[in-house]
C-alpha cells in the first residue's frame, strides 16, 4: 500500500527545506494564500505552517460535526449532505455556507 500522504509531505518539506509535524504541502498553501487577495504579497516562513495546522483542525471539526449527523441518522457513511448540514448548523462556518449551497445547486441542475 502506498502512503501517498506521508510521501507528498516529505516532498513538500524538501521543497521548502523544512519538514515537521505539518501534513499539508506548504508551497500549495502559500499559492492559495497569494490568490486570496492581490494585497497578499509577502508571507513569513512560519505562517504557512500555522495555516497547515489550522486547516487540519478545521477539517477535524467539520468531520466531528458531520459524524454526529451521520450517527444520528443511524448510518455509517458520511455523505456530502452530512458535511453540508454540519456547515449550515455551525455559526463559525458561515463563510462556507455559499460553498455548500453552490454544491447543492450543482447537484440538482444535471437531474431533470
Amino acid at each position, binding site marked *: 500500500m502506498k502512503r501517498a500522504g506521508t510521501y507528498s509531505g516529505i516532498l513538500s518539506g524538501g521543497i521548502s527545506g523544512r519538514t515537521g509535524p505539518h501534513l499539508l*504541502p506548504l508551497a500549495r498553501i502559500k499559492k492559495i494564500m497569494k490568490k486570496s487577495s492581490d494585497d497578499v504579497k509577502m508571507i513569513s516562513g512560519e505562517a504557512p505552517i500555522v495555516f497547515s495546522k489550522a486547516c487540519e483542525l478545521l477539517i477535524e471539526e467539520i468531520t466531528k460535526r458531520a459524524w454526529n449527523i451521520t450517527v444520528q441518522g443511524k448510518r455509517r457513511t458520511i455523505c456530502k449532505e452530512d458535511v453540508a448540514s454540519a456547515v449550515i448548523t455551525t455559526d463559525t462556518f458561515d463563510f462556507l455556507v455559499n460553498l455548500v449551497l453552490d454544491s447543492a445547486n450543482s447537484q440538482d441542475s*444535471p437531474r431533470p
Partner: protein
Amino acid sequence: MSEKEKENVVTEKVVSEADELPKTIVRRVVKDKLSQLSMDSEVSVLRDSLQGFCESARIFIHFLSATANDVCKESNRQIINAEDVFKALEEIEFAEFVPPLRTSLEEFRQKNAKRKSESLKAKETSKKGKKKEPSSTDGVGNKEEDEDEIEEE
C-alpha cells in the same frame, strides 16, 4: 448530454485540483479523526464528501489570509507573520484553534533550531577534516615541494 456534462465537470475539477489541497492528505486527516470518534464502529467517507472537505479548507485559507493581511496592514507591516494569523483566527471566531496552533508552532521552532545546530556542527567537522587533508594527499604535497624548489633557487 449527461455524459458531456460529466466530462466538463471532470475537466473543471482537474484544472482546479492544482490549486486545491491534496485529497490523500485530507482523507487521512478525516480518517484519523473518525477513528478517534468511533472506536467501536467503522465510519467511512464518500469520495464526493471529501471534495467538500478540500474545498472548505481552501476557502478557509482564503478567508484567514485576507483577515491576517488586514491585521498585518493595521500594524504597518508588509510580511504576514504567525502572530497576525493568530489574531485573525480570533477575529473570525476560531479562537479555540489558537492554543494548539501555538503549541504546534513552538514544537516546529524547537525542531528547526535543533536541525540548524546539527547542520552547523556537521559543517564545522567537515571544515576541520579539509584542513587536515593537504598533508596527507600526494598531489598537493608534490606541489608544495615544487614551490620549495623554486624558492630555493
